[in-house]
């Protein structure tokens, strides 16, 4: 590959840009020799791999968070909590229990980010506790029982 073309590739990568987003560079690459095209593809693939953040552990908090968030959301929806456009907790905070005398439930979930996590407990449609603290994992627990 010509030094001039490499210089242009470096210039793009120095800006943390993808050379394939630059029409002039794309055109220059289209005219490159096969070995140069392959060298570019190898370098770009390796830089892409280097730029990816280290993966979370397979059973680490992120997976737990995803599960907990999805499960909590699904349960809230199933329970009919929340009003259109207000978010799932608004109705719980301001309104009456959406299922008075019918359903008792408790949801606890944690969100984790940047080393801090927020745990929220919703009980019978009201936010029971919300605080920020450090936790090692995300979890969801709930129970329900019908009123007698």
């Amino acid at each position: 590959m010509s030094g001039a073309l490499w210089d242009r590739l470096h210039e793009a990568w120095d800006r943390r840009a993808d050379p394939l987003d630059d029409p002039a560079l794309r055109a220059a690459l289209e005219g490159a020799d096969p070995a140069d095209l392959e060298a570019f593809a190898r370098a770009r693939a390796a830089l892409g791999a280097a730029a990816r953040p280290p993966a979370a552990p397979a059973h680490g908090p992120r997976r737990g968070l995803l599960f907990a968030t999805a499960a909590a959301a699904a349960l809230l929806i199933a329970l009919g909590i929340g009003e259109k456009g207000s978010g799932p907790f608004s109705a719980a905070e301001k309104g009456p229990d959406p299922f008075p005398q019918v359903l008792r439930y408790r949801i606890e979930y944690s969100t984790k980010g940047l080393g801090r996590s927020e745990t929220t407990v919703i009980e019978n449609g009201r936010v029971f506790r919300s605080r920020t603290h450090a936790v090692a994992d995300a979890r969801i627990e709930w129970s329900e029982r019908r009123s007698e």
Partner: protein
Amino acid sequence: MEPRGPEGFPERVAGQLPRVRAFLAKLLGPDDAVEDLTQEVWVRAIRSQGSFRENGSLPGWLLRTAFRLALDHRDRRARAPGALETEPAAAGARASAAEVREELARALEPLSSVERDVLLRFHQRGESIREIARALGLPEGTVKSYLHRARRRLGGVQEEP
């Protein structure tokens, strides 16, 4: 019936397809389209075999065709409704963590320790040239040289251009 090309043309094209497939896989990452695009390169080559010049570079023609098809595919994917991100990030998201680690380890093998350090600081940790220079106690120009040489080595280029 397509006009016939040079003697043994289909076989020569077929012999290059693993190289084309590997090139597309590097360019697009783990993308389901790699196989389809490799097939498309094959189809285009066979269709235009009558016009292929014997003194032309068959690998060059095939890889340039693959490159153009990959760019078209990449553009279509970026424009697709619901496309949240473009590769390589999207492609990387589909690769397993182990695959990414192995791919990166293999790519970094030819680099010296300082080249590897500079490259990862810049591309993985997002440090600036100035920050790297300060951390390693090197002039900024030297850091940039290491970075550029590391990238060329990732591409398999051994000599200074």
